[in-house]
């Protein structure tokens, strides 16, 4: 039994190849494959040396993680259905008072003085005149009883009311084709959301919780309440809104939390 495989040549007479030769020479074929794999692993090792890429390099790992997080932003934007409504609940299920969370403890909250408070507008907005609390209270109100979900894993059902963000943006002549809406807060917190979420029917500028004015720890006088984003994407004590096409980041987003964080 010969173990030599005839070399494939165009000069060889064309005829049907006897398949049994594959079985007879199985061992040889296997060996060739194994060599190839061995050679392959060696060249892969050589390749990493050539590029000077060190997989243990912390910053290289970090940049991969960041890149995947950005890719996930795109996936989430794709998954976001602007017509899909968040589930709503009954008043009996509402938690009173809501659960507090910020990057500092509740006793460090600095209440906002509503008399001097103004909502500033900037960026791609026609009418940038600032708004007083009284002017905002006069806008039509929308109520949401939705689940607040924190990135940490806890949740509660909250009852929020205030002007619809889309209607507000339309009223001030914002460019609704812009990419981002950025919110800045009195406590140096900030956060930005995609325009699709800003225009979602369940995104409001909340002034009330459980039909009463929001109390200081929860964002008095104005906070964002999206129904389709994690809790940290809802800045409290808002002092300014900016519409922009330049990625504005945000407090936690700049610290590595996923930017889109859509629910």
């Amino acid at each position, binding site marked *: 039994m010969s173990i030599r495989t005839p070399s494939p040549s165009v000069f060889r007479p064309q005829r049907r190849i006897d398949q049994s030769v594959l079985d007879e020479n199985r061992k040889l074929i296997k060996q060739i494959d194994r060599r190839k794999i061995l050679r392959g692993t060696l060249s892969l090792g050589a390749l990493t040396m050539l590029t000077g890429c060190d997989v243990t390099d912390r910053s290289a790992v970090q940049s991969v*993680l960041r890149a995947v997080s950005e890719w996930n932003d795109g996936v989430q934007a794709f998954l976001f259905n602007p017509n899909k409504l968040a589930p709503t609940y009954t008043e009996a299920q509402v938690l009173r008072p809501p659960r507090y969370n910020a990057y500092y403890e509740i006793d460090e909250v600095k209440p906002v003085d509503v008399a001097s408070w103004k909502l500033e507008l900037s960026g791609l907005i026609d009418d940038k005149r600032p708004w007083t609390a009284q002017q905002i209270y006069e806008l039509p109100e929308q109520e949401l009883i939705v*689940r607040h979900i924190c990135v940490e894993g806890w949740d509660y059902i909250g009852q929020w009311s205030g002007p619809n963000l889309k209607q507000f943006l339309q009223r001030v002549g914002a460019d609704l084709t812009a990419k981002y809406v950025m919110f800045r807060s009195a406590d140096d917190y900030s956060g930005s959301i995609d325009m699709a979420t800003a225009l979602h029917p369940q995104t409001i500028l909340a002034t009330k919780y459980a039909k009463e004015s929001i109390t200081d720890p929860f964002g008095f006088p104005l906070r964002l309440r999206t129904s389709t984003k994690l809790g940290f994407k809802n800045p409290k004590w808002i002092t300014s809104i900016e519409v922009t096409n330049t990625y504005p980041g945000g407090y936690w987003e700049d610290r590595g939390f*996923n930017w889109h964080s859509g629910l």
Partner: protein
Amino acid sequence: MTEVAVHAPPRRLRRTHPLAVRIMHWTNAVSMIIMIGSGWKIYNDEVLFGWLHFPDAITIGGEAQGALQWHFLGMWIFTLNLLCYVIYGLVTGRFWRKLLPVWPHQIIADTRAALRFKLSHEDITKYNAVQRALYIGIILVLIVQVISGLAIWKPVQFQELTALFYDFQGARLAHFVCMALIVGFLVVHVALALFVPKTIGAMITGGPEVDDGRQPQRASGE
């Protein structure tokens, strides 16, 4: 030509664990470790059970945001690999060949034999009934883990999935329970593999050749 025709069609021999299975097995192993380690860190921020916190030393990601980044990187590797594996298992028939049949009386008999250390490990090309039941079980758990993960990640967009687990916390609990089952499986799986070390070799080199009963693709007519 006539000489070839009178031969019975040659059977095609394959490795117990074809290369594709080995690649998917080790990819899964790495992704599982990423998912479990980072998941423990995420869990620590809001524990389901007051008595249970995972020591930072055995978590992945450092801070919560790092753990989340690892988790949402690992999810792609884990989910796509699992998807490939399930499709492979169904299309090639590996699932039916290796995991079926699995009857309760066989499981009981093999469990008894195993506990008396009388279960044969001579032939590692065939799974015993306990292995079959465990492998079927863990594949199902992994699938539920993906579904509960999606339910936690997208409780609005995939609210129908979240509703399968009652609510958001129900999905978290299911995700935790599946994690615990996977960790439990992992401990038993690794312990038994170390007990019969040639199974580890087989998952690296492919193991003994087996006749999987499939005809070669270009079988000649009878």
